[in-house]
């Protein structure tokens, strides 16, 4: 019998080769987040993080792919975004992740921003072996709230 748990549900794959694809990816991310019950703010955080990561893909690797899926962990539900490219890779992942906002540009800034917006973010990268960024946003850990945009106030 199929079991529940950490199953990857409702996977969406978006090839990233242009800035228009980035818009598509972030719209999918936003919709997936809303569908699974994240608030409008949380969904916007996800879309913004995707925007940054997608730009890194097109700028540094030319093309790649973003995969979005829902995830469930007990009572928590969330969105997982995995961005992969076969680009030049990052030589010092630690340094990029450690850099602070004021002194970064390009790759670093996008990743820094995505990390602020999402609940967790991991990077796997080696020069010549491409880059994979995995990030998650969970409901309930983000901005709680009734969706005030849909409230009759």
């Amino acid at each position: 019998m199929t079991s529940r748990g950490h199953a990857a549900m409702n996977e969406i794959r978006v090839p990233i080769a242009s800035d228009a694809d980035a818009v598509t990816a972030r719209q999918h991310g936003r919709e997936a987040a809303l569908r699974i019950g994240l608030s409008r703010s949380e969904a916007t955080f996800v879309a913004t993080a995707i925007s940054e990561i997608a730009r890194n893909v097109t700028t540094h690797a030319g093309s790649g792919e973003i995969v979005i899926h829902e995830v469930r962990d007990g009572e928590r539900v969330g969105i997982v975004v995995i961005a992969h490219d076969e680009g030049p890779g990052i030589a010092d992942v630690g340094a990029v992740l450690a850099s602070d906002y004021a002194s970064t540009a390009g790759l670093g800034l996008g990743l820094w921003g995505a990390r602020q917006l999402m609940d967790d973010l991991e990077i796997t990268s080696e020069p010549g072996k491409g880059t994979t960024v995995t990030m998650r946003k969970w409901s309930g850990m983000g901005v709680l709230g009734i969706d005030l945009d849909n409230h009759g106030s």
Partner: protein
Amino acid sequence: MTDQLTPPAQAPAEGPEIDAELLRELVAHLRQAGTALREEWTRRITEAQLLSVMTPDEIFSEVTAVYDNYVDALESGSVEALEAYAKNLSERIIPRGVETHEVLGVVLLLRDVLARSLFEKYQDDRALLNRVLDAYEPAANRIAVTVSVSFVEERERVIRQQQVAIRELSTPVLKVRDQLLILPIIGALDTARARQLTEQLLHGIRENRAKFVVIDITGVPAIDMQVANHLVQAVRASGLMGARVIITGLSAEIAQTLVNIGLDLSMMQSVGDLQGGIEEAERQLRYAVTRTGDEPRNGES
């Protein structure tokens, strides 16, 4: 080719294939005896006084659907369809006031009704009965858990929403006069409440077209770094929407926490108490109006 008469009670060997065959047989039996078993189940539900908020017709129609899904799940080995149905059912019955113990009770009654039916059918052959139960038991358990968990998860979702609604009622954003909101915060502030507060504040700014917000934290004993960060973000976000924030009731301890997280306190305007904050906001609003009034319009060049 030899003709072999295999009497029903004699199974050749044990193994997963035999179990599958047995499962098919008992599924066929449950389908065949469906009407009678459903009626028995309904009778026992009523006897136990479960689902009292539902009418007999409603119970009958749900019983039919659950029974069919149950037997399908036994047959296919997949609980997906049953899960979807259980979620849908939960969404409908929770607002009616059906409780967890009722759902568990009803599911266990079905399990019992079906088990007894199997006992009756295979009672003449203990060995076969055991094998039948071996086939039935894990499947039935999995189904009971699936349905119950679906119900509980839906209840938890509803409770979460209600908690959110309660929180919203307890952190009101008040319109004092045109373009001026106040947000008096009382009690401990945790991250969740701070996020809730920010969201309400920003929506309040938009709804009321506020230019000033006075956030009074006289009633907040202390805040940790995380909450202080949220407060700073709330101030920044308000600014992005064109509203200036005045903080009032800032205690020495909280001021120290804010300084410790590297916040430049000059970025936030702070006034002693709520009344003073309101007056300051009104002063600035009046000043802006006065300036617009006095300044002669630029003629077209």
